[in-house]
């Protein structure tokens, strides 16, 4: 199923409405936003941090900021979902760096293993919502990249490694790493054009 930009607009309207209500102090709106977005937020934090307690803290932190910044949230700045996951990503990566212990040295597989243990497979099966289909689309798009591009992108996004660190880790020249990431991201963009980060459509 192809998801059109026009449909995302409705989702944005729902989000904007919730943020407006939250800005007026309606905590029920925070509850609703949490219901819509806590899964992708938590899943991302868990993947980056590799343990549930840290991921919970990040999740709470992110939604607390949503509440704090709701009065100044600028809809023009971008879609709420992107803003939310971007914030999640920053906080999670920051936490990893503060720990001074990269999950890669614990190994990305260990983090994924922890995730699989925690993952509720029933929910996986039930993930047939619009977002579920989108998620599958993203996974497929990432898997379709040459493995070297995929690896570099995952090390950057989930591992919090810089270009330099990735080059050092893989033993490849810096220019090669940068080019791989750019080419990979370009292909992802054209594969996912028109999609946006969205909450659960309950």
């Amino acid at each position, binding site marked *: 199923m192809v998801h059109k930009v026009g449909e995302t607009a409705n989702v944005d309207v729902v989000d904007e409405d919730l943020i407006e209500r939250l800005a007026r*102090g309606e*905590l029920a709106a*925070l*509850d609703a936003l*949490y219901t819509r977005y*806590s*899964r*992708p*937020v*938590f*899943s*991302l934090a868990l*993947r980056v941090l590799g343990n549930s307690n840290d*991921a*919970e803290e990040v*999740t*709470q932190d992110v939604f*607390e900021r949503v*509440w704090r910044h709701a009065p100044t949230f600028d809809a023009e*700045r*971008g*879609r709420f*979902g*992107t803003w939310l996951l*971007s914030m*999640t*990503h920053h906080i999670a990566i920051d936490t990893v760096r503060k720990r001074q212990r990269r999950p890669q040295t614990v190994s990305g597989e260990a983090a994924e293993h922890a*995730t699989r243990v*925690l*993952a*509720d497979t029933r*929910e*996986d099966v039930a993930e047939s919502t619009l*977002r579920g289909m*989108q*998620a599958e689309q*993203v*996974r497929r798009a*990432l898997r379709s990249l040459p493995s070297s591009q995929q690896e570099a*992108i*995952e090390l*950057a*996004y*989930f591992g*919090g*490694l*810089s*270009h330099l660190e*990735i080059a050092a880790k893989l033993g490849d020249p810096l220019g090669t790493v*940068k080019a791989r*990431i*750019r080419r990979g*991201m*370009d292909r*992802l*963009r054209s594969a*996912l054009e028109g*999609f*946006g*980060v969205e909450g659960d459509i309950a």
Partner: protein
Amino acid sequence: MEMHAEHIEELAEGYALGALEPGERVRVEQHIAACPPCKRHIDSVEDTTHMLAFVATPVAPPPRCKLKLMEKVAREQFLQTPTRRSRTVNAMSMWAAVATVAFIMSGAWSMRLQQQLSEVTGAQNQIQGQLASLQTERATMTAQIAQLTTLESVVVAAEAVRSLHGAGSAANASAKTYMTPGKNEAVLIVHNLPQLPPGKIYQVWVARPELQQPLTMFNPVDTTEPVPLQPPEPMDSYNWIMVTIEDAAGAQQPSKDTVLFGEL
């Protein structure tokens, strides 16, 4: 240092992924703050980048995560509200405003805390009441078990068994006395005694020609009921055992209403 648009474009993916060196990141941020087209480009790259979050295996956070969040936010919102209100009170001196805030906050807090306290106290009382009645029930059951265990040991150790036969209004009833010669301890097990009308009770007696000794009273709930007997003298010093129907308070002399009778 000012950056050209092509340089920004080169750094967009790295920026969105968070893979730039700190210096590069700062330069991108400075540039897009002043360049709307580049800002739009970065935004769109970020839209794609953060869809990568969906590559992570989907896991729902545990319920406590939401509880903690909502609790914290609700508490802070509660604390903030009076502060915001005080900002509109322009005419007041600083001191008065501070005092007002403190007053409103302490008033609101104490009201809320008092309400919480009374709720908690109510719940505590209720639980304590339940606990007390459970403890009583437990004590009763423990006592019953202990008694049954004692009765069982008396029955098992008994060296003689004497039968009682139904009579009068309880012709279908029967009973057995488990006793040991020389001992002041026995158990009477009754079967099929009819239910008593209100205000009446069964009473056990042991007797010999010159004496009618009243023993325990009982009101059976089951068709078979063990009744402990503790006569003042050994069981084998009496000639007869019988059960009569008496007024609920019991009697010193047996009525004529005998329902069970046997020889010892």
